[in-house]
């Protein structure tokens, strides 16, 4: 009995370590998961406005999976400061567990890489994330989906 308990415990430990290794050190998966979990339009609730003082905005997520150099953006992110509409583009979506990441392009979705998006999918349609760009600094926000249709 003691031996079997010991073996079971050891097995659980090995599995836990293997899982943790896979999650922490494994290669991230392309895309942000199923369409239903993230495609659509989001309100942006700003928690921390960054150096440019972001006050609000909107995120639109288009497609499920992407790859480096693909022709399409995965998302368009408008962030509004006191005087500017800043429009940046999310590309190269990746996921690992609940983590969701992307690179941020400026000017167009084929423009220069100017930052990154690092978030956690709290639940389908709700992402808590940090967006960092050259011009805006580090912006923390909660993205809450209000429509599953990406276009008006």
């Amino acid at each position: 009995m003691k031996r079997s308990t010991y073996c079971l415990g050891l097995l659980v430990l090995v599995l836990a370590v293997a899982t943790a290794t896979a999650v922490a050190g494994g290669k991230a998966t392309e895309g942000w998961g199923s369409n239903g979990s993230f495609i659509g339009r989001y309100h942006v609730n700003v928690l921390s406005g960054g150096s440019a003082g972001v006050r609000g905005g909107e995120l639109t997520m288009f497609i499920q999976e992407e790859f480096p150099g693909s022709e399409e953006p995965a998302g368009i992110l408008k962030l509004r400061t006191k005087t500017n509409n800043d429009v940046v583009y999310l590309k190269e979506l990746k996921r690992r567990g609940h983590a969701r990441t992307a690179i941020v392009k400026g000017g167009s979705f084929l423009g220069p890489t100017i930052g990154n998006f690092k978030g956690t999918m709290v639940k389908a349609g709700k992402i808590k994330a940090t967006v960092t760009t050259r011009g805006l600094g580090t912006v923390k926000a909660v993205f809450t989906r209000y429509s599953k249709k990406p276009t008006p």
Partner: protein
Amino acid sequence: MRLKVLFLGLAVLAMAIVLAACGGGGSSSAGGTTESTEAAEGSAGNGPEAASAPDIEDWPVFGRDRDNTRFATQDEIDTGNVGELGEAWSTGLGPDQYLMESYPLVIGENVYVTTSTDEVMQINGKTGHINWTYTPEVDFSQSTGVGGYGITVNRGVAAEGGKLFVLTFDNKLQAISEKTGERLWSSQVEDPATGAYESMAPTAYDGKVFVGVSGSEDGVRGKLSAYDAKTGKELWTFYTVPKQGEKWVPKGGGGGTIYMPPTVDAATGTVYVGTGNPAPVLVGAKRPGKNLYTDSILALDADTGKLKWYHQEQAHDLWDYDAESPVVLFDVEIDGQMKRGLAEAGKNGLLFLLDAETGEDLFPPVPFVKRAHTPPTTKPTLECPGPVGGSQYSPLAYSPETQAVYVSGINLCMYLKVTYENHNGEKQFAGDRVVPKDTPKTGTFTAVGVDTGKVIWEHSMPTPMDGGATASAGGLVFTGDQQGVLYAFDAADGDDLWQADLKLAFGTAPVIYSIDGTEYVLATVGGAALTASEELGEIGARVIAFKLGGKKLPTGPELKG
């Protein structure tokens, strides 16, 4: 699979080049000059026998005067002293602003410039201080735009009667106070769900605001409309192509959209405007005939919108050869007869010199870039110019002193392949466009005599030329390239007299104005959508003013010829 990825990579490279294809009444501010309004409304001819260009100090309409010449009458800066030109001030337009296709207006002491995300800024022309910013609420999420997926540019405002008029990406025409930036009214000019978007500056004239829509690659139906400048109410609309399913337009097709502001001849009450390609773009079999009025110059009655004449530059277009750049008017003597002339540089790489009264050719079209194209097929075919065009939206300049127009050219051949599929958010392109690997992307800058139809001089430029040209009574013509180098050439013989390396790509041409007797050359830089790629070294959007005795900037490369 690897081949597919490689092909997609090439397609992406191509798209980085293609993105811009498919992208006013004078008024004085409270402190402005009366001359500005009178001169802008006067539409004085610019030929040798006619009155000289309007003698004004500012830049109150898109092309400075009604004829859209981009010819400044100031001569303080000239061929003899242009070497002393240096930076007077430089102002950034906000965080993460990376494109700049806005052609500013200058009224009194104030510069009015838009950003690629539709803000309007009033900037002090002497100091560069931003007095106010109008920030509209804009929906940027629609799945279209320059090259697809919401790439947004804004090419400027129009002004009349104390109001500024701006078009937002999501198809709103808005009037704001020229003095304060307060919004006065807003009108929806097209439903974004059609795929239409806005990139152009409107034109204001005689109580009307003239507005088109963009988006031929999505099968949008082109139109030019006139709106009441006081109320924003639509007065008339001229559709450039039939409805879907009627005549030559198949279901899902359309085209003939508009990317640049119309030019108004006040003397005849005529509005001149160029139109874009038909759609589906590469599949001609689905749209038989000439596909009128795509790729055409149209002359419309300013009061009614009734068509006076048309001149189609590319019948049954298969290459995306819009008549995109704005029309320039001039007076010229040919064989002893005075003519009212019109110039437009087509994306097909030809400069058209037409009789403005009839639309007939004054001279055979003048090529200004390499031209070699055949109908695209399901196999890749190299086409010159590529679908980005021989000249894009780039405005010409016209100098009455040299009797020449100055043409910005793009030498960029591209492979076209019919796939019947939709790419990049464009619903009706129906094919691939790919830049050949290791192909140099170059340009031309060409002076063509409007009285001869002959090339006077030409420069091979190190990059495609997007922004257009600006001439002055100082005997100069200015233009900027994608490396960020601003050039001043001798307008008569093309001598390269002065350069400044601004390190930010040009997607516009300078404007010239004077305040308190000092002449300024103002550059808006940050790149055309076409240039928004990793290839650019530095990024940002700025407005930079130059004057004699200003801070010296480094020069660019020596030109070959």
